[in-house]
């Protein structure tokens, strides 16, 4: 295989793996956060406004971990720096 093929296949495979593996931990984390929030909601329904607000902020912060993985996959697919470098080298 020449360089371009190695880079292309590596980027495509790793792009899928990045999102697939990277989403596992945030998914577990979000599940735990929701469980904790529901438990405390059941115990103290009066504090629901605060709990919900904090839950949303926390969820979005956990979710941004998964989003980082997604961004890296997108960079690998659409804005791969190595791809452009070797393409220029092969072309010129």
């Amino acid at each position, binding site marked *: 295989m020449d360089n371009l093929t190695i880079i292309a296949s590596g980027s495509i495979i790793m792009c899928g793996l990045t999102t697939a593996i990277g989403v596992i931990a945030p998914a577990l984390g979000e599940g735990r956060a929701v469980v904790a929030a529901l438990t405390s909601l059941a115990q103290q329904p009066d504090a629901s406004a605060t709990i919900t607000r904090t839950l949303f902020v926390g969820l*979005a*912060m956990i979710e*941004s971990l998964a*989003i980082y993985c*997604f961004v890296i996959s*997108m960079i690998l697919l659409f804005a791969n720096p190595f791809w452009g470098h070797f393409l220029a080298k092969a072309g010129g």
Partner: protein
Amino acid sequence: MHLGPDNVIFCQYEFLKLNSTIATTWALMLALTAGSLLITRRLSTDLKISRWQNLIEIIVNSVRTQIQEIGLTEPRKYLGFLGTLFLFIALSNLCTVLPFYEPPTGSLSTTAALAISVFIAVPVYGIAEAGVGGYLKSYLEPTFLMLPFNIIAELTRTLALAVRLFGNIMSGTMIVAILLSVTPLIFPILMTLLGLLTGMVQAYIFSVLATVYVAAATRAQQDQ
């Protein structure tokens, strides 16, 4: 497929490009400024107020109470900066309901600019509250061993602010674009709806995090 509104270029003069991000940002800034000017031109203290004044009072009041709840006791000083951040991001994410609109927050350059303004504003507020020495001392807490980690945290949280907003909005628009080519009937609308919710939550989170950072920089001195 293009990544975000940066690649939609309207006109180009040598190295200066007018892309969709800049044009939309200007339009939003114009809308926000002109709207607030028009509304605040005739404020009244009567019992009966116009509905636009009512709207703006609700927004300003809730932003103030949020800032106060996070721990800044004088929200007036910070209302301008933090409120503007929230309003700009919220409006730019809300306008996704308009056809042919691409949110400027879906471009890394916009979110990086917003994050850098937070990065600069935090020491400015910290120094204004406690002077240069007092602010620099907050890097030595709890012990001086934490100095490099505090500096790294300052940089990485700026990066995280930028990438979080960019990633959320960009993924929203990209999912809609992918769904349009797979199941174009109903699902894109549902995902746009979800994108509106995420957009509002992200606007809230961005401004809350900025408030927390400002509060952390100014609170360290108030305790002493």
